């Protein structure tokens, strides 16, 4: 592996946004293909971070910092990608609108999944917590998202996930979106029962599921 790519990977693993930006710039200046920087540098670093989190070596801050570093490097690499490859936007695996649904303010699980999806190459728009279901749908429409990822820890907030799916149906939009659901009390049976496209027990499985469903 080139020294330049090793530096890109290390910057992502260290969650160092400045180093990520600098190493991406240096790699481009050295003539590396932006697609190679993306796939063999940034994505490899992100994969490594995901594995470290799953194994318990990394915690949430490391995951969030890696997300920041990834974003900083992507800001450098993306224009080069666009210049070299027509339709380079297709390098992004898909756009995800993520939110903890209205009345629920728990965000750790959603943050972890959002960070892991970002690290896996999805464009994630995290709307935060306690988000009205109508706003989530409106945001997905505005962005032309492919995936709506919903979280609810509280059993008494879970019905709002069901409401969102019903609202998608009522607005004739259900087929446009992959709806992923998650939360401590969410089971596969419940997800299936409300008509969601899937759920996962942890962030790594959520990424796998999103990849499978979107065909990325």
């Amino acid at each position, binding site marked *: 592996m080139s020294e330049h790519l090793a530096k890109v990977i290390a910057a992502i693993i260290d969650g160092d946004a400045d180093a990520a930006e600098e190493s991406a710039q240096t790699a481009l200046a050295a003539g590396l293909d932006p697609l190679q920087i993306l796939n063999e540098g940034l994505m490899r670093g992100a994969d490594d971070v995901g594995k470290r989190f799953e194994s318990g070596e990394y915690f949430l801050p490391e995951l*969030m910092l890696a997300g920041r570093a990834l974003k900083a490097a992507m800001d450098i690499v993306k224009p080069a990608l666009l210049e070299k490859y027509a339709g380079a936007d297709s390098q992004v695996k898909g756009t995800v609108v993520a939110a903890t649904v209205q009345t629920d303010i728990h965000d750790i699980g959603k943050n972890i999944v959002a960070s892991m999806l970002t690290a896996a190459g999805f464009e994630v728009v995290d709307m935060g917590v306690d988000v009205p279901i109508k706003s989530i749908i409106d945001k997905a429409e505005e962005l032309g998202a492919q995936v709506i990822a919903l979280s609810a820890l509280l059993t008494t907030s879970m*019905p709002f996930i069901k409401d969102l799916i019903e609202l998608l149906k009522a607005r004739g939009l259900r087929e446009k979106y992959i709806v992923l659901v998650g939360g401590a009390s969410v089971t596969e049976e419940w997800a299936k029962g409300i008509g969601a496209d899937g759920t996962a027990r942890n962030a790594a499985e959520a990424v796998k599921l999103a990849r499978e469903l979107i065909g990325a």
Partner: protein
Amino acid sequence: MLNYLEVLDRANSGPYLSEENWDLEKVAMTARRLVKKYKVEYDPNEVVTSDPAIADAIYQAGYEMAVELGAYSRSTERIIQFSQDEIDQGIRDMPQTLVMGEGKDARTLRARRLDDDLPPLFFGGSPGTPIPERYFLPNVISYMQEPLIDLATCGTLTEVDGREVRTGNPIEIVSTRRELQYMRQGLKRAGRPGMGMLAAQSSVSELGDLAVAHPDYLRPCDSHLVPVLNELKMDHRNISRAVNSLEYGMINASLPCVIVGGLGGGPVGSAIINVASYLIANLTCLADYHILHPIHVRHVATSTREVLWVISATGQAFARNAPAIIVADIYPKSGAGTKELLYETAANAIVNAVTGSHLEGCGSADGNLPHCSGLEARWMAECALASHKMKMTLKEANEWALKLLPKYEHVFTQDGNPGLPFDQVYDLQTIQPKDFWLEMYEEVKTELKDMGLKV
């Protein structure tokens, strides 16, 4: 004491900061720096540290964090800053005794010290666990009728009259009032009408909580939860709970559920955040007592090595430096009808009791399923009282934890261990444990007796 309206003013006028920057640049970075500064390390084989310097360092670091950061208002995206004097005053004002309940059933919670002559008190119930309405009443009675249980808590009603409960919806008012009706009815049937409660668990938004501040429901001698959001955050909805208690007089229990493996990183940073959370909760939640309930980022349970470390370090930090009334939740991974639940409960109960906490439990099966019963609360109290009777030292408590951990740690690597719902482990008519569950309990009790625990 700081006027509470001043806290509201600061939430409206404090320095603006985005929530992401609060999380990363304030909380996570400060935790990281303090972990390095105080040079404390987590040892998975010493889940109960016997080194007083560690407990003191955790306290000092948490104090430093509280003074430096203050709290964050999620509603206004502003920092609620406190001066060092205000934090200190909050510490001085922490109640050292607190009467809960009334009449002959009243109990006095005390700020416990290490090696305290006074045994811990016990809250019985599966706090916040979703429980179907059809057996909510027998479920709460199963705890209230246990002679060792001093105070009552309960699960959450997720449906009333067959209707799904939704947070913030008018039905939350109905469900929280219904919960309190069952609780009061349960106390009467258990012959302990004056028993104090930690209730309104069905109130997820402020709606239900406000709706039960009435002597027919939650009495002034009872307590309710005022959560601290992860990490060191408040919002107007939760501040409303504290404000509502100002004149009515309900007892405020602060509830920070620090995520172990979250913004604080590992157990050391998480314990520091837990200490800081209590110090800001003195002011933002008007806390009369504090719930100790760290959550493992992957396994949830309080019985993991990492969470046991946080519980014991936080408990010791306060017992040594600023005694406070701390009530530790026991949330085992396993559910009713399993031996692992009893081992997890024993480990948690011993660690909590020896490190200065009162106990509450059990939120069996991670508090996610109605797989809970009064029998494990009896067991929680028996194990804690045994450790107290034996005058167990910190070192011995650690040895017990290390003996018990291998008996249940496999549940964290398998797909949970949910056990059985309440109606399959208890007879709903007699409200007594079914034979197989009682036999399992007796078997584990004998096993631990043979190992030397004086239960």
